[in-house]
C-alpha cells in the first residue's frame, strides 16, 4: 500500500536521516559553501578540508527534511578521499538518476543508489540534490578562486539546481 513512500524513505535513507554522517564540526575549512532549497527555504552549510586535491574531511550541517539530511549524510560518507573529478562525476550521476535518466552503472554508488526512489516525488528532487549542488558550487568557486587569487567565497543560491528541476 505504501510502496511509493517506502521507495523513497528506504531503510538506508532513514538510517542516514537518523544518524547523519559528517555531523562532527571541523576546525579548518578549505572550502565553505552554503545552499538553500528555494522551493522550501531549507538550508545546508558545509566545510571541506583538502589533502592534495582530494577531500580529506567534511562537515555537513543540514536543517532540511529527511531526504535532504540523508542525502547530505551520504555525500559526507562518499566524498572522503575522492578527487574533485570523482565528486563531480557522481554529482552528475545523482542528477541524472533523479531526473529518471539512464545511468551507466550504479554499483559504485553504494548507499547513494537509494536516492533513486525520490524521483517518484518531483517536489522532493531538490531536497536530494541540495547537498550535491552546494558542494559542487563550493568546489567550482574554489577552483575559480585558485585561478584568481586567494580569498574564501561562499554562495547562497542554487541556480544550477533550479535549472535542473524547474520544468
Amino acid at each position, binding site marked *: 500500500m*505504501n510502496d511509493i*513512500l517506502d521507495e523513497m524513505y528506504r531503510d538506508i535513507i532513514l538510517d542516514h536521516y537518523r544518524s547523519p554522517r559528517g555531523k562532527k564540526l571541523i576546525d579548518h575549512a578549505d572550502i565553505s559553501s552554503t545552499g538553500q532549497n528555494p522551493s522550501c*527555504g*531549507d538550508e545546508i552549510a558545509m566545510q571541506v578540508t583538502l589533502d592534495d586535491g582530494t577531500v580529506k574531511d567534511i562537515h555537513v550541517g543540514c*536543517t532540511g*527534511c529527511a531526504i535532504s539530511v540523508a542525502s547530505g549524510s551520504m555525500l559526507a560518507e562518499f566524498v572522503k578521499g575522492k578527487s574533485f573529478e570523482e565528486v563531480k562525476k557522481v554529482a552528475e550521476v545523482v542528477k541524472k538518476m533523479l531526473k529518471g535518466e539512464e545511468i551507466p552503472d550504479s554499483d559504485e554508488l553504494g548507499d547513494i543508489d537509494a536516492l533513486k526512489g525520490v524521483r517518484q516525488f518531483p517536489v522532493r528532487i531538490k531536497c536530494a540534490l541540495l547537498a550535491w549542488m552546494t558542494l559542487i558550487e563550493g568546489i567550482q568557486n574554489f577552483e575559480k578562486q585558485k585561478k584568481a587569487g586567494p580569498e574564501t567565497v561562499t554562495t547562497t543560491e542554487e541556480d544550477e539546481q533550479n535549472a535542473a528541476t524547474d520544468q
Partner: protein
Amino acid sequence: MSMPSDTDRKPALFGSGDTGFDVNRIKADFPILRQKVNGHRLVYLDSAASSQKPQAVIDALDRYYSQINANIHRGLHTLSEKATAAYENTREHSARFIGGVKPEEIIFTNGATEAINLVASSWGGQNIGEGDEIVITEMEHHANLVPWVILAQRKKAVVKRIPLTPDGQLDLTDIENIVTPRTKLVAVGHMSNVLGTINPVQRLAELAHKNGALILADGAQAAPHMPVDVKQLGVDFYTFSAHKMLGPTGVGVLWARQELLEAMPPYNTGGEMIREVSFETVTWADVPHKFEAGTPNIAGVVAFHEALSYLEAIGMDKIREHAIALTGYAIDSLLKLDRLEIQGPLDPTLRGGAISFTDADIHPHDLSTFLDSRGIAIRAGHHCAQPLMRALGKVATARASLYVYNDEADIDALVDAIKQVRSYFGV
C-alpha cells in the same frame, strides 16, 4: 433568451427537508471526494490553497460550453447574448454576495493576485508618491505584500508593518504610530492563510479613514469562510478568488467604490474596454468594462455563480458556525499530541480553519508526504508568507485547512496519521 438554469439543483444537504449542516450530504456533492488516493479515502485538508468543486459547478461549465459558449458583450446573436447575460448575472450575484454593492463596482480578474496588482498599479500608480506610507501586516500573503513592496520601491514610498502578538493576532498597541497622516493605504488580510487569524478590518478601516488613507482588505481567505459585508467593514477595496470558494480556477473579484474605479486608469488595455481609439489617443469605456480588457474567463465567471449559490444555500452563517466548531475540535485534537505546536490563535471564534502546526521532530515536508501516503492532503511550506515565517522563526509549517465538506472523521484521520509518523521515521 433564457438564462442557464441555476435553481434546479440545490446542495444535497437540503435533500430531504433537513436544514441542519449535514457534512455527509455535502461530501456527496463533491465528486473528487469519492476517489481513493494511495489506496485510502481522500481526506482533503488543503482548501486554503484551493477548494474542491461541487457537481453543480462542474455541470455549469459543461452546460456553458455545450449550450451557451460565445464571446460576450458585442455579439448580436443569441449565444452571445445568453453568454453576456450569464456573465453579467454573476457580476450581480457577486455584488449581492459581499453585502449588496453596485454590480458596476465588481471587476472580474483572473484571481485575487491580479485584483491586488490592479489596485497597486492603477490606484497606487496614481496616488502613491515619494515618502508616502503603505501599511501592511506581518502576516500578509505574498499577494498582498509583493505588489506593495514593488510599488514602494518604484515610488520611493515606505512599507510599514503591523506586528503580531505571540498568539498570531495583530498587535495594535502601537497602531497610532503606524497608521498616521503619512499613511496613504492600509492593505490587510481579512483572514490569514497561515494563522487563520481574523483581523479587525473594521477598526483598521476607521483608523485609516481618520488619517485620510484608504484601506484594502484581501478577502481571499475570508470570503469563502464567513459572511462578508464590505460596506459594514468600511473598506475601500476588497479582493478574493473564486477557486478558494467552490468556484473555478482563473476567476478573481475586485470590488471598489465606484468613484475610486472611475478615477483610476485601466490596468490591461485592449478590446471591449475602450470608447474610442486612434493611433494617438484612447478614451475608456465606463466601469466595470474599463478594467476588463479582452476576452475574460467567461465560462469560469458563469460557473462561479453556481458556487455562490451553493454557499448561499448552505448559508454563510452556517458555514462560519461549522468552521468554528470543526476548528475547535481540530485544535483540541492536535494539542493532545506530544511535541506539536500550533501557530496562530487557539480560540476558534477568533480564526478560520487554516491550522498551521509544527512537529518538534518531523519536518513538515516529510509529514505531509507521509500523510499523503494515507490519503490525507495537507500543505507544507512557507505558504507564500515568508516574512511571517521569519517572524514565527520557522522555515516552514504544516497546514491543514478545513471547509464545508470536512468533518470530525477527517480530523481524526489526520490525528491518527500524525500519531504514526514518528514510528515510521523512527525518531
